[in-house]
C-alpha cells in the first residue's frame, strides 16, 4: 500500500501560509523604526495601531486580556495548553508552561494589535490549524486529544528543518516561533526564573561579584586595580 507522506502539508494550509508570508513581508522592515509616515512601506500603518499607547501606567500589574481582548476559542486554548506542555513539561524543579499562565500569554501575543504580533500571530494560527489537521490525519484525533507519545512524536518531526522535505519548512518555522514564545513566557514567571537560577531583582546592601571560589575555579583573577 502506498502510504502518503506523513509530513505532507495540506495544500490549502500551505497556500494560506504562503499568502501569510508575503503579507508579513510588508511589515518586515519594522515601520516603527523611525521611518517617517510618508516613507513607510506601502501598506504599513502610518502610526502605531491602538495598543497601550506611549504613556501607559508602568506601575500596574497587567494580566493578558487587560489591554486588548483575548481571541482564542475554547478548542484553541486546549490545543495551545497541550502544545505548551509538550514544549515545557513539568518536572521535579518547576511546573509546566500551561500551569503558570503561558497559554494566556500566547493568546495575548496572538491577539495584540502591533504589526509584529499581527504577522507572527497569523503564522501561529496557521500552524495550529495545520497541527490539528495533521494530528487528526495521523492519529484520528486533534492535537489536544492525541496521546502524549503521539503529540511528542508530531513535535519531534517538526523540530528540525529536513532538507529532504522542503514542504515541511513552514511547520518547522511555526514550531520554532511557538517554542520561543513558550520559553519567553515561561522563564519570565517566578517559577521559570527560579528554575534557571535567576537570583536578582532583590535589594542588596553590597554587590560582592562572583561567589567565593568561582573566579579561581575558572582560572581567573580579580586583583586588578578596581
Amino acid at each position, binding site marked *: 500500500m502506498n502510504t502518503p507522506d506523513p509530513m505532507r502539508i495540506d495544500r490549502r494550509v500551505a497556500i494560506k501560509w504562503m499568502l501569510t508570508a508575503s503579507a508579513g513581508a510588508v511589515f518586515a522592515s519594522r515601520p*516603527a523604526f*523611525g521611518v517617517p509616515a510618508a516613507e513607510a512601506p506601502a501598506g504599513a500603518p502610518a502610526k502605531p495601531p491602538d*495598543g*497601550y499607547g506611549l504613556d501607559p501606567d508602568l506601575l500596574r500589574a497587567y494580566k493578558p486580556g487587560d489591554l486588548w481582548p483575548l481571541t482564542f476559542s475554547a478548542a484553541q486554548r486546549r490545543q495551545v495548553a497541550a502544545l505548551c506542555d509538550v*514544549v515545557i513539561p513539568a518536572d521535579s524543579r518547576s511546573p509546566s508552561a500551561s500551569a503558570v499562565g503561558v497559554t494566556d500569554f500566547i493568546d495575548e501575543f496572538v491577539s*495584540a494589535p502591533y504589526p509584529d504580533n499581527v504577522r507572527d500571530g497569523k503564522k501561529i494560527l496557521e500552524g495550529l490549524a495545520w497541527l490539528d489537521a495533521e494530528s487528526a490525519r495521523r492519529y484520528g484525533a486533534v492535537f489536544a486529544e492525541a496521546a502524549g507519545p503521539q503529540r511528542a512524536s508530531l513535535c519531534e518531526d517538526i523540530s528540525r528543518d529536513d532538507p529532504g522535505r522542503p514542504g515541511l519548512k513552514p511547520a518547522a518555522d511555526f514550531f520554532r516561533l511557538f517554542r520561543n514564545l513558550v520559553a519567553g513566557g515561561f522563564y519570565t*514567571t517566578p517559577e521559570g526564573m527560579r528554575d*534557571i537560577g535567576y537570583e*536578582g531583582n532583590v535589594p542588596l546592601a553590597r554587590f560582592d561579584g562572583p561567589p567565593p571560589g568561582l573566579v579561581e575555579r575558572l582560572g581567573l583573577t580579580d586583583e586588578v586595580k578596581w
Partner: protein
Amino acid sequence: MASVSPISVSDNYDVVVVGSGAAGGQAAYTLAMEGARVLMIEAGRKYDPVSETPMFQTNDTAPLRGAGTPDKYFGFHDATVGGGWIVPGEPYTNASDEEGRQFTWWRARMLGGRTNHWGRIALRNGPYDFKPCSRDGLGFDWPISYEDVAPYYDKVEMLIGVFGSNNGLENTPDSPDGVLLPPPRARIGELLARQRGRGLGIPVIPIHRAVLTRMLDHRAIPPRLHPGNAKAQRILSEDMQGRAACFWATPCGRGCSIRANYQSTTVHLPPALATGNLDILANAMAREVYLDTKGRAAGVTYIDKTTGQEHRASARAVVLAAGACETVRLLLNSKSGRFPNGLANSSGLVGRYIMDTVGAEWGGHVPLLESLPPHNEDGAGGGHVYVPWWLYREQKRGRLGFARGYHVEFGTGKMMPGAEGPYLPDAGGTTSFGSRLKEDARRYYGSYVSFTGRGEMIPNRDSFCEIDPTVVDKWGIPVLRFHWKWSEHEIKQAAHMQRTFADWIEAMGGTNTKAPDPDGRRAIHAGGAIIHEVGGTIMGNSPSNSVTNPWSQAWDVANLFVADGGVFASNADKNPTLTIMALAWRTADRVLDEMRRGNI
C-alpha cells in the same frame, strides 16, 4: 515643584531654557543655583521618577512579557513615556529612500528627556578628541581643548556621582583623586573576557557610569561646586542626602525612584527648584526664538499643547537645550527680516554636520560560562567594565584602514529573563523542547556574551538636516528633513568591530554561530539609531566656520546660547552625555558672566 502654566509664567526671567534633559537640566541647575531666575520649557509632560518608576516589577506582570513594541520600543518598563521613534503628530522626513541614507530620530517627550532611560555611561572626551583634525586631517578641531573642559568634567562627576577608576590609559582621562566613586566588582563573564582579551592586546577596565556605588559626600562636595554660595551649598547638601546608594537591583533604563543614578529629574531639577529660582513649564512646544528691535533674542514662542494656544516667554537670555536636531529646527524656523535664513545662521551652517555614533554588535556562546552556580549578577544595571579605544599606534601606522576609534561595552551574566527567552543553542539545527529544553535553559543561562562597539563618526557634508519645504507637524510647525551618509571610515570601523569581537569570542573558548560580515554596511546601524546625535550648531573660532563661539554663544546673537550636543565639532567614541553636561555648565557660567558684566 514650581511648575507653571502659561497664565502664571512671569515676565521677569533672566533666562529661558528650552529643554530639560542633560543639557537643559545642567544649565538650569547652574543658573538657578547661582541666583538667576530661570524658566524651563519642556515639550513633554511632567514626570516624577520617585513616584512613577517601576522598581522590581517583573516581566510576567507587563503586557507581552515586557517586550518592546512600537509604543515602548525599549520594553514596557523603560522610562521613556510620550516619545520614541515615532511621535504622533510630529513627523520628520528623510530626503533619500536609498538604503543606508536614512536618519532615525528618537525623541523623548517628557520632563528630563532622554536622561530618564539612558545607559548612564559617563565617559570623558580625551585630549585627542578635541583636536582630531590636527591628528589626522579629517573633520574639525574644537576651538577649546581638554584643559578647558576638565574642570567642568570634575564638577559634573562630583554633582551627579560617577563610578569608575583611573587607569592612566591613552586619551582616556583620569579624574582627580576623590572625584570618582568606587567601581563595582566585575562579573564572572567580564573577568573571563578581560583575561582572554589580554592575549589580543585588548585592555578591559572598569567602566564609568553615573550610578552611586555609595552615597555622595554631602559635606565635602557642595563647597567645591559652589564656593562662596552658602545657599547653594545648603540646598545641594540637603539634596545629596536624599539620594540613596544603589541597591543593586532594577535596570537603570527604568529610571530610579531612590535616585541612585543620574537623571535630570532626580539630580538637576530638585535642587534647582529648591532655590525658588526655577519655574518649569511642561507641555510647551517651542516654536521659535523671537527678537527685540535690536536683533537680540527676546524670548521664545511656544504652543501650549494642552490648549493649542500660542504664547510667548520673555527673558534676558535664551539657552537652547532641546537636543541637537530640535535646536536646529528651532533656529531654522526663527526667520525674520534680519535673519531670513534662520537665526544664528549667517554661516549657513545651522543643521550641518549632524553626527551619530557608529554602532555594531556581536555575541557568542562561551561554554566556560555554562552551568555556573546561580548567583546574583544584577549589579549596577549595565556592564561593570569596558574597553577604551586601544589601537592608537596601529592606526597611526595606517594598519587599520579607517580613522578614529571605538570603545567596547559588555553584555554578560544571568540577567532578568525577558520575552525573548533564554539563550538556547539548538544544536544541530533542532528546535529543542520538552525535558531537553529545560535542561538546556539551565545549562546555557548566562553563557552568552555580547560585545557592543560604539565608535566615532567624522562630520561630513552629506549628513545634515534642514527644514522640509512642505511638511509641518500638528501645530503647523515646519519639520526637519534629514540627509545621511556614512563615510568609508565608519563602515570599515563597524566591520572591524565585528571581526574583533568574533576573534574575542573564540579567544574565550566560545563559538560564533556565523562568520562576521566583512562588509561594514551590513554591520552598522542606521544614522541616529544609537541616539547620540550631536552637531548642527557646531562651535568654532570664527563666525564663518561655526554657529557658536567657544563659549557656545551664537556668533550672530550675543544673548543666545546652545547648551546641548549641537555645539560638538566632533563626536568622539565616548558617549556624549557627560560632555554635554560639562559644556552646559560652562555655557551657564558664560551666561552668568555676561549678565554680570552687563553685556546681555
